[in-house]
């Protein structure tokens, strides 16, 4: 018998994650200390590298863009009670969709290419997620298992296609030819330059704006729309959904389709915004980071944006840190990221209980 934990909303959404992150950084500091480095210096490099320079900030926001998309993808499925582990595979397929669309439609006017690339990414990501969704809804195959299997299928498929089918005959590396120039989403420094403002060059591009718009639309969908209502009923109380005449099977498939389409945003940012061609492993495991981002952001778009920023800082700052302090390798940075995921995601309940306890103390004394 455990009583439900009740606490004010601000504590639940701000205080608890903050406590988690601070604790994670303290523990990570101990790890840094244990290999003989100064954690304070390390923290300075981390923050300096991610926020201290315009260029660093650009990279931080570029990563954050990726994380917002995959975080939203996980969150939408999560609201329907589904754990979509397949962001990697869905983003990979979305990349394939982008490449097929952009490199095979030369007759289209240039201004259509960007929307078409984005739609192709969404459609391919959605289709790749729809299959596990269908299997879950109609056959009861567990979504966690099937989405993991579909990650492998996607990664093998893309290798096969890039090596044997899509590669330029004269090229040695497994990648497609560059996308048409008109299909490249403008870099943020170029956009600012149009208005006569100079900012340092980085990979950051206009996809960030698309990510923020998506976050708003997903908020509207989940918390304000009839469909979002149905999604949350299915995720929160499937029996009540049946009572209400909402078909859980239908909602599961819809939620997975939306989730896969959002995961496609990762491919848009990486390929149309930066690489301008399809290449192997462009997803870099970010699809999995989406799970941590969604958990930490409590599956709420605002939380996801904040968590994405944090992970952006960690990725960009971590790279700088590994460069400045060779004793702290990339692997070490991965460890620190892992600790944050552990505390913000898995051990979250621990701090909820603790914070609720501390908050209820003064009330008891007054009662």
């Amino acid at each position: 018998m455990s009583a439900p934990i009740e606490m004010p909303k601000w504590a639940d959404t701000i205080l608890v994650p903050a406590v988690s992150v601070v604790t994670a950084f303290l523990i990570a500091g101990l790890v840094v200390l244990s290999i003989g480095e100064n954690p304070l210096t390390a923290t300075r490099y981390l923050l300096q590298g991610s926020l201290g320079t315009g260029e660093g900030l650009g990279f931080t926001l570029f990563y954050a863009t990726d994380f917002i998309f995959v975080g939203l993808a996980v969150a939408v499925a999560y609201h329907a009670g589904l754990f979509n582990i397949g962001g990697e595979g869905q983003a990979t397929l979305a990349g394939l969709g982008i490449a097929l669309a952009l490199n095979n439609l030369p007759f289209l006017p240039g201004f259509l290419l960007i929307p078409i690339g984005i739609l192709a990414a969404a459609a391919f990501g959605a289709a790749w997620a729809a299959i596990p969704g269908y299997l879950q809804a109609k056959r009861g195959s567990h979504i966690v298992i099937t989405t993991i299997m579909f990650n492998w299928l996607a990664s093998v498929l893309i290798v096969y296609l890039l090596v044997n089918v899509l590669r330029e005959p004269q090229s040695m590396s497994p990648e497609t030819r560059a996308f048409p120039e008109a299909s490249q989403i403008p870099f943020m420094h170029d956009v600012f330059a149009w208005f006569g403002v100079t900012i340092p060059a980085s990979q950051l591009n206009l996809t960030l704006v698309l990510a923020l718009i998506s976050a708003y639309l997903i908020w509207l969908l989940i918390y304000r729309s009839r469909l979002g209502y149905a999604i949350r009923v299915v995720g929160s109380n499937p029996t009540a959904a049946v009572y209400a005449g909402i078909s859980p099977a239908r909602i599961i498939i819809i939620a997975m389709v939306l989730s896969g389409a959002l995961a496609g945003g990762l491919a848009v940012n990486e390929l149309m915004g930066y690489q301008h061609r399809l290449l192997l492993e462009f997803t870099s495991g970010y699809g999995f980071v989406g799970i941590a981002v969604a958990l930490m952001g409590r599956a709420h778009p605002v939380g996801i944006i904040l968590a994405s920023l944090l992970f952006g800082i960690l990725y960009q700052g971590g790279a700088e840190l590994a460069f400045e302090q060779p004793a702290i390798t990339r692997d070490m940075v991965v460890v620190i990221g892992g600790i944050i995921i552990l505390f913000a995601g898995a051990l979250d309940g621990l701090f909820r209980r603790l914070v609720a306890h501390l908050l209820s103390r003064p009330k008891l004394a007054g009662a």
Partner: protein
Amino acid sequence: MSPAIELIAINKSFGAVHANKDVNLSVERGTIHGIVGENGAGKSTLMSILYGFYEADSGEIRVSGKPTRIRSSNDAINAGIGMVHQHFMLVEPLTVVENVMLGAEGGAMLRAGEAKVRKELARLAKDYGLEIDVDATVAELSVGLQQRVEILKALYRGADTLILDEPTAVLTPPEADALFELLRSLKQQGKTVILITHKLREIMAITDRVSVMRRGEMVATVETANTSPPELAELMVGRRVLLRVEKTEKAPGAPMLEVQNLSVVDARGVLRVADASLTVHAGEIVGIAGVAGNGQSELLEAIAGMRRPVLGSVRFEGQNIGAADHNPHQMRKLGLLHVPEDRLRMGLVPAFPAFESAILGFSEEPQLGCGPILDHDRLVADLARKMEQYDVRPPAPRLKTSNFSGGNQQKIVLAREIERNPKVLLVGQPTRGVDIGAIEFIHRRLIALRDAGVGILLVSVELDEIMHLSDRILTMCGGKITGERKASETNEQDLGLLMAGVTDEAA
């Protein structure tokens, strides 16, 4: 001689909720002591403190006059206190002997312990008339006998004082009578029984003294012989309540809902409803009496379109409902609304704010928003109005559904369904876990609805409720409809037999 159990100035708070305030209770040895009170009055908390689930913030427990610290159920057992929970704590695939041994195996090998258990069970059977097949697996036993196993477990562990939490909720009337017989025999052997119940009839029938709790406080302890159900109800609620809402005779109208030869099979392939036929007319309440788990839930769900029947047909206002249209969405459109039995699992979404739970099943209604977007301000205003009409407390539409008490949750469900002007209303367990004061209110609403010409199909395990509200009563047993009576021409014994499966033909 000192009392068997004394609780002195017990206090217990959960956060801001003061669940027990300076509670005193003295239970004499060799008596049956009833504890009554509304939900949330603090009965369960008090008993949980006595049985070691919670520790009191302050106060003292004395067992046979000796101050005793009870910090776990093991401490309670060692102090001679046994508890029979409302939901049995038995391992179904194991035999009676094995269940009794569980937790008291007496060593790594079972044989010696088993012999001891058998000997002891034989003695208990002789002393208290607790006959039972000790080698039967628990799953084979009827609910009444499973409860007997729980009592045996407690006695085997040396309980002198037995706490029973709502023991008759799952029993047929004959089984309840057998239980009371057993409790009397325990009392004669010097055991002490504490009986928690909300059924005043049982309090009057079996207890020697009764304590009434209200809002965490012990408001009275009286000799049962010197009190009456209306007086107890008034003590529980704090104001006068009508235990029975008056209703006038009324000729039923045209048939609204006709169910013919309906059979329902559950997910495991077990036949739950067998060949059930019934008709509900306009302006009529048809009650279905039966012990929980005899197919009533499945019958309601099948009529509402939540379950696909394997056989049979449903007609609504004379129109046959085809299989394709027989789903909750269509049935709602036709005017068949449904107050489900299990509020929290089905009728509401506990994690949602109340105003979102208040549109469950109706979220596609065009007037609730603009296109695909729901108008939250409107939903909040709608619910605020209904909360006032239905006296929901607190009247806070944005509060999380699970933070309302059972009675108030039920009012939210009732308001949602009733205010949409049903032609036929299916109602499952309308007052389960609902306070006496709210029961009166809910009964009034249902009768007003009937008087307005709505056909109501009522399922309840509370026989009193069925008898008070219904115009016509059907009984169910083992998925079959075993009998039909006019409410004015039957009584508890008659219905009890039908509920136990003794059909008219056999009688």
